[in-house]
């Protein structure tokens, strides 16, 4: 109950705005004209391949890097020129960045100590954060005496003690083993539920993005490719990059040709959703279908032939890897449908699950 009261107290709903933010290192432009609105209390995940600028964008928000142009607004206030400590943010680093010569309690209370807060206040706040993260037994230990997961919790604790408007996480789980990563992911999601603060989380792992985010921001080469909820990005990608990046195994892309009554793939016509800007018949397009959206065709009906290369049985799911025409393709099938190498399966996909992309890899809607 007491914990509930404390948590209520630190609950904040501060939003964040990026206005035409660009960042260059010398002649290399790593962030280009990024516009982004984040609502207060949202859990936003920046996701993208290595070198896409997601960490740089986070560091620009934190104030650890200066923007080359553009504005950063946190809780409606322009903080572009402010020091990191004056932006109302707290950050959890990939390496945790716990001061090795300080105990857990000293690490968590360092921000308050340098701000000149009284010892009692520091102890009280550290105690509260330690309660939330179950770190009470470790307060006198040094970071070197803790496990990876415990260090991660201390780093989060240090962020909580700062009582920030916005939490920033820079690939916080990448140094943990697979099992611990899942546990910590759940813990972070729970923490967001409890605290309700705005959280921005950077990762290259699309699973983390899908499971944690209210809103995902997909970045490529310093630009935002698409912003939306995990389900929007999954079901309705704006381009082939987003379609391919979100979802695991990734979306299959095949060559197709527009026909009057659908799209032709490997000599077979597949029905599509109604398209507003429909290209002329005969226009070559890319056809995107997710592995789980293929199904075995009923016998006697026309279907896309899929030549099985090898199969993967994962317990809950089974994947067949093979080819449709020249293009490699992955299909999620029932356990019973696992087939021998070289055999051919007849597949179909529903119109709702077929995404068309033009030659510039942009979505045809």
């Amino acid at each position, binding site marked *: 109950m007491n914990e509930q009261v404390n948590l209520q107290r630190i609950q904040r709903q501060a939003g964040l705005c990026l206005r035409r933010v660009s960042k260059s290192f010398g002649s290399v432009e790593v962030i280009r004209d990024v516009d982004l609105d984040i609502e207060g209390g949202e859990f936003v995940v920046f996701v993208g391949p290595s070198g896409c600028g997601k960490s740089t964008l986070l560091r620009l928000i934190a104030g650890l890097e200066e923007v080359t142009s553009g504005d950063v607004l946190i809780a409606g206030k322009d903080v572009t020129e402010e020091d990191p400590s*004056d932006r109302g943010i707290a950050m959890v680093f990939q390496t945790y*960045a716990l001061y090795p010569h300080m105990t857990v309690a000293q690490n968590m209370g*360092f*921000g308050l100590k*340098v701000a000149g807060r009284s010892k009692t206040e520091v102890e009280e706040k550290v105690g509260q954060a330690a309660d939330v993260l179950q770190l009470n037994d470790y307060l006198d230990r*040094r970071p070197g005496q803790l496990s990876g997961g415990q260090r991660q919790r201390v780093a989060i604790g240090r962020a909580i003690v700062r009582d920030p408007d916005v939490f920033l996480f820079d690939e916080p789980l990448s140094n943990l083993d697979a099992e611990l990563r899942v546990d910590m992911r759940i813990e972070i999601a729970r923490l967001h539920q409890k605290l309700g603060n705005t959280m921005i989380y950077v990762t290259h792992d699309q699973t983390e993005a899908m499971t944690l985010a209210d809103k995902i921001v997909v970045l490529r080469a310093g630009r935002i490719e698409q912003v939306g909820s995990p389900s929007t990005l999954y079901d309705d990608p704006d381009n082939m990059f987003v379609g391919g990046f979100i979802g695991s195994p990734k979306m299959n892309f095949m060559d197709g040709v527009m026909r009057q009554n659908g799209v032709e793939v490997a000599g077979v016509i597949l029905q599509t959703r109604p398209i507003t800007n429909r290209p002329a018949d005969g226009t070559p397009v890319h056809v995107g279908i997710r592995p789980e959206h293929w199904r075995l065709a009923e016998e006697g009906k026309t279907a896309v032939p899929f030549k099985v290369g090898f199969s993967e049985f994962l317990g809950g799911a089974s994947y067949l890897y093979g080819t449709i025409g020249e293009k490699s393709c992955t299909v999620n099938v029932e356990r019973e449908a696992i087939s021998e190498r070289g055999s051919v399966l007849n597949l179909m996909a529903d119109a709702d699950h077929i995404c068309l992309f033009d030659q510039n890899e942009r979505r045809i809607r």
Partner: protein
Amino acid sequence: MTDGLMAVPETPMPTRRRRRRHSQWNGLLFVLPSLLLVTIFFIVPLGMAAWMSLHKWPLMGVPRWVGFDNYERLLTDKSFWSSLWFTIEYTVVITIGLLGVAMALALIVQGQGKAISAYRTIYFLPVVTGFASAALLWVWLSNVDTGLFSPLAQDIGLTEGRVNILANFTPAFWSVIFMVIWKMAGFYMVILMSGLQSIPTDYIEAARIDGAKWSQRFRFIIMPLIRKPFALALILCISGSMLAFDQFYIILSGGPRNQTVTAVYKIFNESFISFRLGYGAALSMVLLVILLALSVIQLTFLSDKGPKK
């Protein structure tokens, strides 16, 4: 190996003991060269000095056993204690000056970039000149008539006439301090720089986000994390300064009015000017004990319970 042990299960100990003794002899063989060097160049001369210190030992003639007379005499030798006191004063001033300047330089040159590596080289250059050469250079620069400082000060109107900076204690002392800092700061800069460079930038960034100002980051994050290289620099600086000789001998010849005679200078004077080798040896033994005590204190400081990994 195991088979051998199995064959004589009732008496395994002697075999093991023999093997251990054998490997101990091997170990001794490996450390023998350094043991020999230490013995020839440290233990034997130390013993000889200790032996000498118990004698009246002229350069020519027969040494005469005097027991602890030399030690008794040095207790009341004001010039020795004043030289020791001067050495301590010098050590304190030069340690603060050197490590302060070295730290400032290290903070400047710890980054990356072409200009920075050029500065690093420039700051380090004086280190590669010998102490005697640097001191000789300083003698020339400080010369009242043909040097640089006095004529320059006069030319730019800083002083009315030529001022002999080596004629009075204060300017002479500070001029030596300045020379030693110029000559040695680069060396300590490198030691401290290596410490600074080993601090992950994440710590500093985390501290920035925590709201720590530069001075707070320096005090609470940087200094504790470079404690070991700093302690190494401190030990080298203190023990080096306690043995200061060349700069005061070459630049000031102990003057003005014997005010800049250091402990080693005093030992040199007694042993090789007055040829009281026995007394000089006794002074050396006392200085050795002082240095030993200082080193023990510093080593304790170095190996404290500080940061645990």
